[in-house]
């Protein structure tokens, strides 16, 4: 269980560029939650992820994981139980190394010793896992990852992250940089993995339909605040129109279509 207590993040405090990216946010993420997050650019979605993953220190407030205060814990330590995938497919894997090397590095989190773990049994395990991607990657263990397409790389990152059994996964628009066909494939794969492995998930998306269609809970962010938190039956009955209306009711301004893309 992840808990954010009254958390705030202010960039360049005390200067003319002062910018409150996150304002007094409280949030509880329960085990097994699949939360979709929408909001316009600059709403604070990625900053929220940075605070949870430990990439940034909050200006105020606390981050609790299973009741333990991890507010000051270093990003690399939190990475042992939080998996994160970025929009840029290049960030998840090392392009000048082979597929098997990449999978070996990502296989076990934490301490890396002087053991040679990459053997034929391990390769067989990797092949078996890669087969589940249905991309033919199981035949390319000795190829450099740099030769794969963006979609393949993102699928690989997803797979390696899932194998490490994280307690929470953060997906930061992880299909936004892919072409539509690859984006669809990676998104379907994501849904399959989340279901099969029972992953607690937070997913930022620019696509309102995806946000409504997937997950059991939806957050809408605006100007550093969570303005909507919808779950259960209400989430099931949600439509794009209802969402736009709700935004209007709360913020007393119209949600512009270029703020949140209304793709179908």
């Amino acid at each position, binding site marked *: 269980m992840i808990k954010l207590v009254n958390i705030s993040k202010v960039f360049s405090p005390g200067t003319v560029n002062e910018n409150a990216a996150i304002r007094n946010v409280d949030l509880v993420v329960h085990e097994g939650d699949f939360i979709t997050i929408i909001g316009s650019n600059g709403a604070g979605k990625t900053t929220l992820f940075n605070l949870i993953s430990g990439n940034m220190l909050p200006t105020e407030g606390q981050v609790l994981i299973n009741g333990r205060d991890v507010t000051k814990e270093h990003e690399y330590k939190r990475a042992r139980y939080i*998996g994160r995938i970025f929009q840029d497919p*290049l960030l998840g*894997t090392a392009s000048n190394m082979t597929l098997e090397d990449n999978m070996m590095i990502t296989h076990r989190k934490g301490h890396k010793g002087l053991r040679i773990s990459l053997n034929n049994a391990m390769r067989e395990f990797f092949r078996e896992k890669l087969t589940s991607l249905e991309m033919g990657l199981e035949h390319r263990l000795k190829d450099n990852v740099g030769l794969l397409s963006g979609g393949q790389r993102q699928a690989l990152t997803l797979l390696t992250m899932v194998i490490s059994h994280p307690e929470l996964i953060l997906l930061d628009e992880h299909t936004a940089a892919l072409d539509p066909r690859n984006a669809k494939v990676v998104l379907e794969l994501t849904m399959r993995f989340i279901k099969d492995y029972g992953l607690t998930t937070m997913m930022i998306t620019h696509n309102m339909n995806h946000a409504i269609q997937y997950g059991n809970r939806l957050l809408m962010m605006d100007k550093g605040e969570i303005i909507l938190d919808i779950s259960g039956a209400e989430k099931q009955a949600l439509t794009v129109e209802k969402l736009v209306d709700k935004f209007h009711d709360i913020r007393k301004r119209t949600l512009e279509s270029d703020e949140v893309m209304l793709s179908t």
Partner: protein
Amino acid sequence: MIEGIFVEGLVYGIMVLGVFITFRILSFPDLTVDGSFPLGAAIMAIMLTRGSNPWLALMLALAGGMLAGFVTALIHTKLKVPNLLAGILTMTMLWSINIRVLGNRANLTLVRRSTILSDVVQQLSPYMNSQVATLVFFLVVALVVKVLLDVFFHTDLGLTLGAMGNNEQMVINQGVNPEYMKLIGVGLSNGLVALSGAFVAQFQGFADVNLGQGIIVAGLASVMMGEFILRSNKIAMLTLRVLLGSILYRGLMYLGRYYGYYINLTPSDLRLITGLLIVVSLIVTQVRGERKWSGAGAAPLNGGEAKPGAVGASPDAEEAAVTRGPA
């Protein structure tokens, strides 16, 4: 003469392996090398002069180099100093330390001292002349270092280190402290450089504080020349090409020294030539990169990653053909 080129190529090749680790694997342009190389030579020379075990001296030279690397890595990670400046700081401080190590002298001769090299040459004297024996000795030393490095880069730690220069975020995502990785990488690199310095002291018969001047540039030129020889994504081939590059570079320098006078070249011009070699290598890689618009392998100073290409597009086939190893 030809043995001389190979011997120099191999003994300096150990240093080039160190430079390869920082520049190519870690993408950490480390200038400590100009100080840790003479440090290794100085430790070796003073220990031999004091009559200690040459193998112990060798181990101490290695340890001294690693320590120098740790200092650079710590200045960089703990004080958030840019890596280039951190290296320059350590290198500059090492100049004073090296003089201290040599007993407040700028140089120390090893003539008529028994060294590891002289012992081996003597042992082999019934079978071969001293030049061939020297070559055999350094061939074995360089290959042992190379193979040990290959094994290291196959371990979990070594693999993770391999990802550092390419994608630090990925290393962080695996729950590994990147500062720790830099410490190990830069330490290992400078350990090798000092080891090379310790062997050069035995080979040349003296240690000198100025032995390290321009070593980093020579190392870098060797790495780049090697990259023209062959392309691969296998660590064993990468370290092999480092040694080959080093031999090629020493060969060119030899030609410059012995035949350069025909075109009015003096030995002092060699550094200019070395620098120009690097510049030409960079230009060639850049022109190649522009033509192909992608490029692992031989690449500019930042360690091999060209601008990330169009996301989602598949990389071009020519590149695929060269980098793919035999399955």
